């Protein structure tokens, strides 16, 4: 049942537990217990909201930064990653295979702010040997959800046999 619950809430974390239990033909307490259990086990790590800031008055800039680091003896990449993910500005950090080591996604109020963070905080870090910064120009799809304005039009006829 855990997998089924995850599938349901992965696309809508606000769905009421009553609905989940009806959809899975299970009682509410069981569903609540399973969710709690997955929260405790850090299977479910949070319930953030997918916001398209472009459609608000707030300025937001997203940048993707490739970082090469020198891994540390006994600690590998983890210690370096920790130094980076603790910054509040950092949205995501991934360890990568391929030509560089870490992908860092930064959100800031302006390009200036992001640039300052990269030059002053990230590239100056011990063990960081190089960075490459790419600014996001437009988000088309995130979390499996299409973010462009394309209107969903109901194409189906209202009654068919």
């Amino acid at each position, binding site marked *: 049942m855990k997998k*089924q619950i995850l*599938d*349901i809430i992965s696309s809508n974390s606000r*769905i009421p537990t009553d*609905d989940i239990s*009806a*959809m*899975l*033909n299970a009682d509410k307490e069981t569903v609540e217990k399973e969710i709690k259990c997955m929260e405790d086990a850090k299977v479910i790590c949070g319930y953030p909201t997918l916001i398209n800031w472009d459609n608000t008055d707030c300025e937001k800039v997203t940048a993707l930064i490739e970082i090469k680091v020198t891994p540390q003896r006994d600690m590998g990449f983890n210690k370096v990653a920790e130094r980076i993910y603790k910054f509040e500005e950092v949205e995501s950090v991934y360890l990568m295979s391929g030509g560089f080591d870490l992908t860092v996604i930064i959100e800031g109020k302006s390009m200036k702010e992001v640039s300052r963070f990269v030059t002053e905080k990230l590239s100056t870090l011990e063990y960081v040997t190089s960075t490459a910064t790419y600014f996001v120009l437009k988000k088309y799809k995130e979390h499996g959800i299409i973010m462009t304005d394309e209107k969903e039009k109901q194409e*189906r*006829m*209202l*009654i*068919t*046999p």
Partner: protein
Amino acid sequence: MRNPLSKKVEPIKPSGIRKFFDIVSEMDDAISLGVGEPDFDTPWHIREEGIYSLEQGKTFYTSNSGLKELKLEICAYLGRRFGLQYEFNDEVFITVGGSEAIDLALRAMLDEGDEVLLPQPSYVSYEPCITLADGVPVIIELKEEDEFKLTPKQVLDALTDKTKILIMPFPNNPTGAIMTKDELEEIAKICVEKDIFVISDEIYSELTYNSNHVSIASLPGMKERTIVINGFSKSYAMTGWRLGYACGPAIIIDQMLKIHQFAIMCAPTTSQYAAVEALRNGDEDVDKMRTAYNQRRNYLMSEFKKIGLDCFEPFGAFYVFPSIKKFGMTSDEFATRLLMQEKLAVVPGTAFGACGEGFLRISYAYSLDDLKKALKLLKHFIDSLEK
């Protein structure tokens, strides 16, 4: 001027769904649970393959019976899913939707006066197609207490010397009823004993929720007397592509193909290329959609209980068929008032045969949000009746 119309065609009644369609189309804010097709878009990789075939200029006729690679994929699919073994070259061909296959099978097999056992409630096209093929429809009224399954006794009671074909419409539109292997075996036994042919419309075969679909053609002695009809509309959400297929004994398929050749030429080429992709790489899409339908089905059953609507639990297709008998109205009255008062459209059971009286067909090919909105209206309506 002479009457330009055929005496055979003119008396055929238009589908009972028509009336509701006309009213609903005039309302701009009606909510409908009356749709008989998936709410999902065709999975992108399937659409993309159709687009690619157009880019490559694959815009010509295919052979009458369809693309060889598609027929091969269909045979492989029927084998792995239902244990059916068909020869791609003379036991299967591609049609314009399952509907064409129904029409062709009847026309290829019926002579004037031959009787066709037709369980109802069932899809709207069987009865007129039987009539158009000069056959005589013998209606078997499926019962709610049998969970709208066909019983051996009903078949035996309806048999005459003239009976030639039995239509097997399971998983069923509009009731959602399915038939298990044991139940099919009893029906199959009668068909073999009494030398009856079967047209098994298995268009909803991928949409069963408590067990895998069993094809009656997979039972002993049945393959040689069964035409299996299936297609891509429901399982892969491909209704508008108009693509189905028929499988059966070469001797019957050959004659069906003859009519198809003259009436249709071949099924749409673009759709056939897309369908090859569907069968090769679409299993996961089908699973996902099945899971979603099942969750909505569970949701509806649980909500019906809360609002006091009686409904047997159906395990197939994407319909539920609740009873409205306790409200003392005909299906048509109930559906009309529901539409006028709450602007919620459902289809009266009578659209699928007279024995659908007292029932409604409610489709759950809708998002959970849509179902929620609709159920609120339905509850409001039922509360107003009970006051």
